[in-house]
């Protein structure tokens, strides 16, 4: 606090007060459908669907998935390394948000293979590709809301990563072992990638 406390600027990048979340992005169509479908399965008395959250955990996202009927498993490692400790086909949904952006291809490819392994046949891997170029970007924590919309903010302790720019073709190549990728362009160059395990 300065002499004139109320004029002081909030400390940048790591102060105690978290920055407010950015305005929400519009609902994610694929995620909204997944949340709705999970609710139908639970209501019909089927096996409780299971979701794996990768990266910095968000209580809001956990509550949204749990509210939709998912049993949520969180792997909060900022840089997960294969092999993952989960069984083959254990999950219906893997949410990785923008974690892949901070990983080189040689690190991401085996991780995608692991995420494919732990998905059941027909299960979904969902992540974001946000970068427009090679640059240092902070690690973000993402909130998923019940209507499928997203918001995010920088984590308090900035962990800058070099963000890899990947073209749609790069993403489809990397996702080929999963059976391909559906890529949706959202605002500000944010791309939403959905992969479904087919084999």
């Amino acid at each position, binding site marked *: 606090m300065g002499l004139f406390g109320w004029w002081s600027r909030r400390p940048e990048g790591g102060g105690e007060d*978290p920055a407010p979340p950015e305005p929400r992005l519009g609902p994610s*169509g*694929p995620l909204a*459908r*997944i949340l*709705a*479908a*999970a609710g*139908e*399965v639970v209501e*019909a*008395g*089927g*096996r*409780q*669907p299971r979701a794996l959250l990768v990266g*910095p*955990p*968000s*209580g809001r996202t*956990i*509550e949204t998935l*749990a*509210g939709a009927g*998912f*049993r*949520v*498993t*969180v*792997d*909060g*490692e900022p840089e997960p390394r294969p092999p993952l400790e989960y069984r083959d086909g254990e999950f*219906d*949904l893997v949410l990785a948000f923008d974690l892949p952006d901070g990983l080189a291809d040689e690190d991401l490819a085996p991780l995608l293979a692991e995420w494919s392994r732990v998905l059941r046949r*027909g*299960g*979904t891997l969902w992540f974001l590709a946000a970068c427009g170029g090679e640059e240092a970007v902070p690690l973000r*924590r993402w909130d998923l809301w019940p209507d499928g919309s997203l918001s995010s903010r920088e*984590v*308090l*302790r900035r962990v800058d990563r070099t963000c890899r720019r990947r073209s749609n*073709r790069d993403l*489809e*190549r990397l996702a*080929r072992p999963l*059976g*391909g*990728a*559906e*890529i949706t362009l959202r605002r500000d160059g944010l791309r939403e990638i*959905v992969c*479904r395990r087919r084999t």
Partner: protein
Amino acid sequence: MSIWGRKEPEEEQSPVIMTGESGSEARTAAERPATKGAAMETRKAIIGPSIQVKGELIGKEDLVIEGKVEGVVRLRDHHLVIGKTAVIEATLEAKSIRIEGTVRGDVVAGERVELASGSTLTGDIVAPRISIADGARFKGSVDMDRSGAGKAEQSAKKKGAVSTLPPGKEPGAGAQARPGS
């Protein structure tokens, strides 16, 4: 005290609390006996940073753990705080649980589990509400069933059930995939 040596008027007065309709029972805060509720709110036990406990801790009051505990901690209707210096290898059960240190074990709360910045939890959470601060590390599953243990048992029985919906209706199968790359 002012520069003139007089006591400030505020120093001679205590807050006056009016009770009862007529106010005839007005007493100062100092004279008012502590209520049972107020006493319970401030009362809590502390396990200090140098204390190590192995076994089962059961209590009927709030507890702050700053040391090392292995085993089980049960405070069914009270609040549990795991301090920054605490290292826990135990199952934790309480009304609400705030974790600031390191916990390896399952956490069960009737109201809320809170992971503070800098905390580390490896284990499963069962609670109707969960709060995870930036900087908290968590690895495990979350069960947010709000109706308590009864439904938890039912969901455990359902784990062996097979989905009765056709493949197109299962989670993750809603959107149409783009033609192959």
